[in-house]
């Protein structure tokens, strides 16, 4: 029997439909891979019993000719999504033991389409991080290593577990979330595809909130086609989330194919910096060249407020986080540390329950929202945000999609940036603008660094135009023609 975990989501779907193997066999193959892959620390909760039961149901449906779009396909779920009666802790100590009595809308969509749940995936605590080093469950290892080196690298974050699991074939696809780059940056670091759809495209109901005006659910997958399949299932208006957009969900897979004649691709000049690694610049130029060969027109554009986006983000996101994380107080769920009175209980619970990065961000947020500072910081940041959005609106009058690097470098070593929060924040420099403007963005593997590590390119699109992103990304994927299977050192 061939190794079923080698199949992409689309190939697995086709194989199941052709009855080349059963959903049970496919799930078993992934459960075996998960056991063998524990060194990566990608999963924080494995759900083999649930998976096998779901696979059994899928086989029965397939036999009756009632296969749904993702029937029998084994998926990993980021620990940020509420999964009924299953570990949901946002990888934080403060949600110890929390098992929700409800299911998030996005995961419900996936199960309603027949997908199988393998387990919950590791992440930075409360989605705050760019390396998956802040998790209560310990760091995740990037399946990729520098050629000839044994050094463990980070998979990126916050969706490090999702990205590592997909890259190492411990699931056929994964759900993730992106607030400042948490889908796209780890995808770039692990040679996987990650798409953050337009704000409002997917429902946030049942996803542990970090920054409500920035958070968005999205998939991490091995191929662009797989991402299209996942997004079609995950997306959709939800009455329970008033920020979810009431727009129809197209069949995103149908957007793939066709050449790029007439497509205008913008290259934002402010993303080019002196000192940027030559190989990143070269990759970016190569990406533009591929698109041009395939019929696109390359146009330089300007996004003048680019350099302020990260600072504005580090006001807005912590501010919203301080509000969203106020609920973790030991009263209704999770960890409770006693105190002499209720205030002490709050203070002790939160001190013990939150990790250092979460604490830092909640405190920044509290400070910038406090009396006397709200105008100077939060309002100012929201005004800058409006200007950032305006820049993109103007650019999209001239072009249809923007091409940028996804990250300033390839994956870095575990521990390399944990001493310096500010340096860690700079990892999101190319991705944050997209969340601030609410636009869709995709990271697609486009090449390798000199040391053999994957590098990604990012495409940014108009609101609700994920179709153009997927179509264009598929061309980059095809042109790059990469072999994206890291050596399996973790077995």
């Amino acid at each position, binding site marked *: 029997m061939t190794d079923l975990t080698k199949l992409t989501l689309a190939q697995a779907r086709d194989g199941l439909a052709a009855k080349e193997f059963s959903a049970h066999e496919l799930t078993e193959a992934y459960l075996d891979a998960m056991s063998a892959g524990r060194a990566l620390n990608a999963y924080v909760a494995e759900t083999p019993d649930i998976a096998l039961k779901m696979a059994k149901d899928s086989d029965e449906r397939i036999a009756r000719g009632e296969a749904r779009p993702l029937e029998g396909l084994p998926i990993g779920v980021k620990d940020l999504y509420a999964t009924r009666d299953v570990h949901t802790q946002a990888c934080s100590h403060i949600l110890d*033991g929390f*098992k929700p*009595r409800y299911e998030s809308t996005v995961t419900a969509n996936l199960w309603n389409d027949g997908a199988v749940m393998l387990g919950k995936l590791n992440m930075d605590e409360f989605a705050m991080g760019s390396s998956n080093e802040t998790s209560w469950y310990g760091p995740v290892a990037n399946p990729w290593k*520098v050629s000839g*080196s044994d*050094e463990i690298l980070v998979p990126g974050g916050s969706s490090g577990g999702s990205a590592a699991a997909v890259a190492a074939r411990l699931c056929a696809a994964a759900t993730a979330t992106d607030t400042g780059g948490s889908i796209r940056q780890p995808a770039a670091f692990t040679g996987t595809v990650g798409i953050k759809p337009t*704000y409002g495209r997917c429902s946030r109901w049942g996803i542990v909130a970090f920054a409500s005006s920035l958070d968005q659910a999205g998939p991490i997958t091995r191929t662009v086609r797989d991402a299209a399949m996942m997004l079609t299932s995950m997306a959709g208006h939800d*009455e329970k989330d*008033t*920020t979810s957009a009431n727009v129809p969900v197209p069949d995103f897979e149908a957007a793939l194919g066709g050449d790029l004649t007439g497509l205008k691709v913008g290259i934002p000049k402010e*993303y080019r*910096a*002196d*000192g940027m690694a030559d190989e990143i610049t070269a990759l970016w130029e190569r990406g533009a060249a591929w698109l041009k060969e395939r019929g696109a027109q390359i146009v330089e554009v300007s996004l003048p407020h680019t*350099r*302020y986006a990260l*600072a504005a983000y*580090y*006001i807005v996101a912590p501010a919203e986080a301080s509000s969203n994380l106020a609920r973790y*107080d030991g*009263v*209704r769920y*999770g960890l*409770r540390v006693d105190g*002499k*009175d*209720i*205030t*002490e*209980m*709050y*203070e*002790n619970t*939160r001190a013990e329950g939150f990790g250092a990065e979460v*604490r*830092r961000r*909640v*405190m*920044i947020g*509290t*400070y910038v929202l406090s009396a006397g500072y709200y105008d100077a910081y939060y*309002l*100012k940041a*929201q*005004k*800058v*945000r409006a200007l950032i*959005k305006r820049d993109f609106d103007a650019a999209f009058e001239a072009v249809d999609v923007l091409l940028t690097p996804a990250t*300033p*470098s*390839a994956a*870095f*070593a575990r*521990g*390399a*940036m944990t001493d*310096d*929060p500010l*340096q860690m924040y700079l990892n999101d*420099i190319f991705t944050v603008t997209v969340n601030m403007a609410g636009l869709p963005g995709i990271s697609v593997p486009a090449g390798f660094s000199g040391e053999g590590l994957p590098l990604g390119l990012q495409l940014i699109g108009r609101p609700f135009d994920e179709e153009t992103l997927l179509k264009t990304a598929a061309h980059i994927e095809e042109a790059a023609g990469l072999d994206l299977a890291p050596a399996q050192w973790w077995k």
Partner: protein
Amino acid sequence: MVGVAGKGMRMDTQAFLETPRGLRHGAFARLLSWRLACITLAIIKLDCPGDQSLMSVDRDTVRRIATLARIRVKEEELDQLAGELSSILNWIEMLNEVDTEGVEPMTSVEQMEMKKRDDVVTDGFCPDDVLANAPRREGNFFAVPKVVE
């Protein structure tokens, strides 16, 4: 140098470029750290003065924030936190360069009217679900230490 402890929080561009952080894990990490610092500083044109900014945060402010955030901070942690928060807040100061005269703050990503529904009960009557994860439950209540003095 962006540091994490001590009194004088400085963000000297030159020093930052010359002494990259993250030196613990080999030449590769050093190269990445340096490259990362270069690109990002070039992009964001970090040009901070050597002096401690007026907006930096001291121990008392950290205590006040900790109280507002209801997170107990130990005395011995105050200096480190003050340092970290200061360096982040100093960096954020660059937003003052942006002319936002007449710009409306962006309150939502999309032009949308807040959706409403009829004010009727459509959910609930499931106290066991609501209390399922309670650290301490008494009947249909969450039990907590006394609130009223």
